[in-house]
């Protein structure tokens, strides 16, 4: 079974406490329609488990298939460097069909980020290395496509509908408690 080769650290973008029973990691691509669908599912799952769940998002842009995926990932990282990762992450998924520079600048403005700095970061590839590092770590962890979920370090090979994810997380909670 494939396992997470790059442990979750403080460098990661996480929602929920470090002490949570279960850590759910998603490797995702902002332009991937399945990830767009998973975005809503994850929100429901988070609501269901509250503080018992920590959710981590890592970048896995499939650039050959999705021409805007890399830039979108870098935009989210840019916002993240200013403490607004999740605000940007959510807006990118909610506007998935409009990804592109115009949207990135609009969202930057909406989040009160400097659009000059945003444009510069994209041009200079300031966050490219970070996105690439996520991608490489994903490949080594058996991420073969998007979205890929990892639950407490083990790749989730089932589907990612609400019921399946909830039951896999319940199972991991059971294992975590008996360990």
């Amino acid at each position, binding site marked *: 079974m494939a396992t997470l080769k790059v442990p979750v650290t403080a460098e990661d973008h996480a929602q929920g406490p470090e002490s949570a029973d279960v850590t759910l990691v998603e490797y995702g691509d902002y332009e991937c329609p399945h990830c767009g669908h998973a975005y809503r599912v994850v929100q429901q799952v988070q609501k269901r488990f509250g503080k018992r769940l920590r959710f981590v998002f890592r970048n896995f842009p*499939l650039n*050959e298939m999705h021409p805007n995926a890399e830039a979108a990932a870098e935009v989210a990282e840019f916002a993240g460097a200013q403490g607004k990762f999740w605000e940007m992450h959510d807006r990118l998924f909610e506007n998935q069909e409009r990804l592109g520079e115009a949207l990135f600048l609009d969202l930057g403005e909406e989040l009160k980020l400097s659009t000059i700095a945003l444009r510069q970061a994209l041009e200079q590839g300031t966050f490219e290395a970070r996105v690439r590092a996520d*991608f490489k770590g994903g*490949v080594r962890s058996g*991420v*073969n496509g998007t979205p890929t979920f990892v639950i407490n370090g083990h790749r989730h090979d089932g589907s990612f509908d609400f019921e399946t994810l909830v039951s896999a997380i319940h199972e991991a909670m059971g294992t975590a408690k008996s360990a």
Partner: protein
Amino acid sequence: MAQSSASNVAPIHTGGVLPAGSVAPNFTLHVTPDQTLTLGDLRGRPVILAFYPADWSPVCGDQMALYNEILPEFRKFGAELLGVSVDGAWCHDAFAQNRHLHFPLLADFEPKGAVARQYGAYRAADGFCERALFVVDKEGMIAWSYCSPVAVNPGADGILQALEDLPK
């Protein structure tokens, strides 16, 4: 049981994919309708052979699309990636263009599956290749091999590990 249909192809490796330590059988296959590629010509650098069942089927697309994304990582090891299936060169051409693939797809088309058979990577009952991976070292020896269940994308972590483990 002997398979008479394969009698024109020799040698045939049966009983799983060729293991590490075997000599990688040499071959020449069409890479485009008017160009061929010979494995032996790539001697001196590692070669990744990715046999896969067919162009266009959704799982293969995923696997080849993934490798396409990871190509820069493979190239850091100086490695060449070759996809191999029984599809013809024209089919490969259309598939590669559609998916923007930046590595060659070889047509193991005539005699059908002859190269895959030599690597123990042919599903005679189905008439297409296994989803089998080989890392061939710069001396032409198989350094690592893996056969995935046909419906499962084997990913790239095994390939990267094998490339890392090659003697420098």
